[in-house]
């Protein structure tokens, strides 16, 4: 994987470093064998598709105000109706999926960018560095994510960015823990011992053996954290501390709809449904990926 490290020849190793996949059924077949992975994949795929399509096309411009068509019922002209400003709900939901996915991706990337290296250092160095890093992670973890985001919004002003930074930092300890425990497991294997006896440096071992082996763990964790990030972004936008109006965001749409619950309750149902579906999708995908990527776990369960 890196030019500086001469590749180890597989037959000379007592254990295959990248797992025993080649004896397993092909990846897509294992995927189809897991109901969670299929259902999660379909839901997440639909949301991603809606977001991509919204970049090029939505039935109406998501920000276009048309007071004459306010509170239109769902029908052929507006499939899901219009809101109090006459904006097309379907168009806003589609554009909102982009906000949601963007917030999820950035939050998870921030969490991983800090958490994974911290976990790797903690695992490979041990001792004081490990204690310090994991102690700090525990402190951050004890602080509720939503609370941190609210406090940050109070200080720095409400925006999608502050929400994403707060969520990302708050979930950083999850990555640190998962990475550390996974890395410790890999570091205690025979093939790492062999690599060490070859004189490989610590960094090379982490790159060549630890990272590829814990990638499945990290992918599963990313999917689960993605759903938490979506939830947190929606909650913050709902409270008026995330994506500011009029930008289309599911949480903000829900907040706007709440003023008209007695007149047009459907207006609140659509974004609520979208949020729940997105969270469900990424949760199912995470659970399913765990089955697909880690067959050993499935057998043990």
């Amino acid at each position: 994987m890196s030019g500086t490290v001469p590749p180890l020849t597989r037959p000379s190793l007592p254990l295959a470093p990248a797992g025993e996949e080649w004896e397993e059924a092909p990846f897509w077949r294992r995927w189809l064998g897991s109901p969670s992975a299929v259902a999660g994949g379909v839901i997440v795929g639909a949301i991603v598709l809606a977001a991509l399509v919204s970049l090029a096309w939505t039935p109406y411009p998501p920000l276009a105000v048309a007071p004459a068509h306010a509170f239109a019922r769902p029908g052929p002209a507006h499939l899901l109706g219009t809101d109090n400003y006459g904006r097309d709900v379907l168009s806003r939901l589609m554009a909102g999926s982009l906000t949601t996915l963007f917030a999820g991706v950035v939050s998870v990337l921030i969490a991983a960018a800090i958490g994974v290296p911290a976990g790797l250092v903690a695992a490979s160095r041990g001792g004081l560095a490990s204690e310090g890093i994991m102690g700090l992670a525990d402190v951050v973890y004890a602080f509720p994510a939503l609370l941190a985001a609210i406090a940050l919004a109070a200080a720095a002003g409400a925006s999608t960015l502050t929400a994403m930074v707060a969520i990302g930092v708050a979930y950083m300890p999850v990555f640190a823990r998962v990475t550390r425990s996974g890395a410790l497991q890999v570091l205690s294997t025979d093939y790492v011992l062999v690599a060490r006896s070859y004189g490989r440096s610590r960094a090379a071992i982490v790159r060549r053996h630890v990272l590829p082996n814990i990638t499945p763990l990290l992918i599963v964790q990313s999917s689960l954290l993605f759903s938490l990030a979506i939830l947190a972004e929606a909650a913050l936008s709902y409270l008026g501390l995330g994506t500011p109006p009029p930008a289309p965001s599911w949480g903000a749409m829900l907040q706007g709809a709440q003023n008209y619950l007695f007149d047009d309750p459907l207006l609140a149902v659509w974004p609520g449904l979208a949020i729940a579906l997105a969270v469900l999708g990424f949760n199912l995908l995470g659970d399913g990926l765990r089955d697909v990527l880690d067959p050993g776990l499935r057998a043990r369960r």
Partner: protein
Amino acid sequence: MFAVLAVLPGSPAQVILGTQATPSAVHALSAKLGLDQPLWERYARWVGGLVTGHLGRSYISGRPIAGQIGSALQVTGPLVGLGLVVGLAVALPLGVLGALRHRRPSGVAISAASQVGIAVPNFVAGILLIIVFAVALHLLPAGGFTPWAVAPVTAIRSLALPAVALGVVEGAILSRYVRSAVLDVLRSDYLRTARAKGLRPAQALWRHGLRNAAVPVVTVLGLEVAGLIVGAVVVENVFTLPGVGTLLLQSVQNRDLLTVEDIVMMIAGVVLVVNLLVDLSYHLLDPRIGARA
């Protein structure tokens, strides 16, 4: 946290007086609020206040913050308590039943229902409850709160929907842990021995299993209580309840930083204490844990 809030741009005095204020007025107010003193001095005074219960006065309203939080707690405290009751009422039966019916259609249905329950955020659940019980059925109020002293029954009625919104979601999460803890116990040797003595599965579980299943569940319960407290911040805003969460959000909007800091630290403190209590409770549930440590 204190440092982050203090370092960021925008002087509270400037915010209070608005953009039209003269620099000298801003300066005078800063002096009055003690904002011109060095950061570490303000920090030391704040931490001292947290310990002794003197939380200071709001930068905006000038009222003592401790009193405001105290009256807000009369709403948030019962709300979190009721939410916990609802959560346990959902999680325990569903979790145990889901484990007993493991691999049967009814068990799979329970798992699927809990998966859906987890995905519905509490504020979405709250709005759906308002639509059903307030808008469609006119059974319960859609929001607002009557103080306990004025009309206790009305107060309970206005907390009913928020507590369900809060509790059902946490209950769905908790039920999955209950289910897996009970499943572990069901597979254990001592339960098989109990079955061999002639006890039915439910009897064996009741006499020997539940206490052992409680240890992992209580661990998660601590996290769930933390989730309930933070969730209450959001749910109070759905139902316009004058609780700690509403106070926090108002203070954020007014940039009433001292109040924000006090409330955030108080909630974080409560969460830490709950986690500590959970650690201490292991020993009561399973004396072996204390003996090993």
